[in-house]
């Protein structure tokens, strides 16, 4: 049986009806990966024996299936999230042989819910990038068109799900790194509210922006993964103590009644410069929201045009601090034959980090240095507050905000790598949600004339993922199935 096309809901129903078992599903997906991932390069590590052992262990608990909301569901994990015994390299030479001694809280919760870890996926090094071309291993290819990028930084996670290797994966999103690859790969991707999911066990990039979240092929699947992975867990001082709602409970006919008459905010001036096909697809998506009874409202977000500058000061400053721990001392790459301790630090880091990572560390170091701190980091934090206030004001007038997720569809490998700012502009629509701390979801809206996916982004109030899921679910049902996605081709993988 071809398990590549099955969603989480299909798997759970199939297990319930005893049509197939977690071991069969895991084995089938592992075979697919072995046969087809050399072309896509979505995975950095697979351990078939460990995965099959985990699947067998879950099967022994089949009598408790009802209590395991992700019973037997294989999930791929981005390689900047720790899972005991598996590598955690952040796709960097500086962590080449690092094996995680503990498991991230969000992954521990998925395992408690019955999920099976399928493998570790590729990313831009230390999650810094928008195309996965900054991976210290190799770029990942987009399963819709293998000359193109899958987006980034969670490109491996996105490609694995789009290729049919996994029904779901975890990514992390600091400036758009779940939502943008989801958009470029025709998937659903969710960045939760900051403080919804524990960051314990994530390799930190920017601590006030990072959030882990799901990439899936349906809104219901994303809701199921998030409701399992979210919540405090006791090891993160920045997580809300509030109970995580059961998001899937409302994802049925009742959602249509809930979303009718909700106001959807659109900021037209923000759309200037967007690819014409992306814009047309977005406008058609807003029409569908109107058909669902939602009311478009024009909103202003006067300071979002400064989001790129703000982000590239705040995030890089935080990164310069977080990446100081990679010094060749306790773990990771150590330069051979250092002259002294200082040389050990400088050469290990100089040789171990890739160019984009070093660029961002230096930018952040500069922004935090004496004499420049107020003008750069201090100023950026003040502008961040202005952006937060823009969203507070907008949510007085609307209940969700809609935009394209990315200004373009998937670009060619190598196309944007020479100028950093051109690459950074891929994230203009996603950055503000991280700066404001609000949740965002990308849902597929269609494809362009080159058959490349286009995503619509919905953003909501803090901790209002429920509304986002319900709107996204109704839109998805209204939109109908995507034509010929790569996970439906025979045995998955590239188009």
């Amino acid at each position, binding site marked *: 049986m071809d398990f590549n096309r099955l969603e989480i809901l299909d798997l759970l129903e199939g297990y319930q009806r005893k049509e197939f078992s977690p071991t069969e599903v895991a084995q089938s997906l592992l075979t697919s990966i072995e046969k087809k991932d050399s072309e896509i390069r979505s995975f950095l590590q697979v351990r078939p024996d460990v995965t099959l052992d985990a699947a067998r262990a879950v099967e022994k608990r089949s009598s408790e299936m009802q209590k395991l909301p992700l019973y037997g569901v294989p999930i791929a994990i981005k390689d900047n999230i720790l899972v005991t015994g598996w590598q955690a390299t952040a796709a960097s030479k500086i962590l080449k*042989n690092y094996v995680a*001694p503990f498991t991230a809280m969000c992954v521990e919760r998925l395992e408690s819910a019955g999920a099976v870890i399928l493998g570790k996926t590729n990313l831009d090094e230390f999650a810094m990038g928008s195309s996965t071309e900054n991976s210290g291993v190799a770029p990942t290819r987009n399963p819709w068109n293998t000359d193109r990028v899958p987006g980034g930084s969670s490109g491996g996670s996105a490609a694995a799900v789009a290729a049919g290797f996994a029904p779901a994966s975890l990514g992390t999103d600091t400036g758009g790194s779940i939502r943008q690859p989801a958009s470029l790969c025709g998937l659903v991707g969710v960045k939760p509210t900051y403080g919804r999911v524990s960051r314990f066990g994530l390799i930190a990039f920017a601590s006030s922006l990072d959030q882990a979240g799901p990439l899936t092929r349906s809104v219901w699947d994303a809701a199921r993964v998030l409701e399992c992975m979210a919540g405090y867990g006791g090891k993160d001082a920045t997580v809300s103590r509030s109970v995580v709602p059961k998001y899937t409970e409302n994802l049925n006919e009742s959602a249509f009644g809930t979303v009718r008459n909700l106001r959807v905010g659109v900021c037209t001036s923000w759309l200037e410069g967007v690819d014409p096909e992306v814009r047309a697809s977005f406008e058609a998506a807003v029409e569908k929201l109107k058909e669902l009874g939602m009311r478009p409202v024009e909103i202003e977000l006067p300071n979002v045009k*400064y989001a790129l500058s703000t982000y*590239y000061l705040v995030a890089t400053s935080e990164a310069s601090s977080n990446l100081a721990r990679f010094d060749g*001392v306790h*773990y990771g790459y150590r330069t051979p034959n250092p002259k002294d301790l200082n040389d050990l630090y400088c050469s290990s880091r100089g040789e171990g980090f890739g160019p984009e990572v070093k660029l961002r*560390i230096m*930018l952040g170091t500069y922004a935090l240095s004496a004499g420049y701190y107020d003008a750069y980091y201090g100023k950026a934090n*003040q*502008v961040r507050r202005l952006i937060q206030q823009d969203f507070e004001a907008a949510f007085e007038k609307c209940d969700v905000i809609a935009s394209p997720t990315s200004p373009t569809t998937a670009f060619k490998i190598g196309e944007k790598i020479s100028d950093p700012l051109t690459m950074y502009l891929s994230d203009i629509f996603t950055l503000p949600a991280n700066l404001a701390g609000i949740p965002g979801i990308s849902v597929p809206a269609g494809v362009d004339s080159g058959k490349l996916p286009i995503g619509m982004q919905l953003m909501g109030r803090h901790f209002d993922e429920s509304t986002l899921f319900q709107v996204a679910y109704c839109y998805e049902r209204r939109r109908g199935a995507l034509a010929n996605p790569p996970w439906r081709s025979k045995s998955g993988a590239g188009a």
Partner: protein
Amino acid sequence: MLSRDEVLKIARLAKLSLTEKEIEFYQQRLGRILTYVEELNALATADTSVVRTIPKDAVAFREDRPMPFSDVRELLKNAPASEADSFLLPQVME
């Protein structure tokens, strides 16, 4: 474009060794980005309240209870060089 001295100073603060080619590369790249972010200076932000990023109900403290850690050997498995229960480094003092 940043000066060579500026790039070397930042690299020293960041504990990054750079090749000659890299110094030139970063002079150019950092210069480009820093010019771009200058746009923030045009914004009036004197009255802006302090930015808050974490949820209101997040609690930074836990009970002050000792929790002994027993997994030293696990942590040393990733060490580039170790001896007994310690990480091994070049001599720092005479």
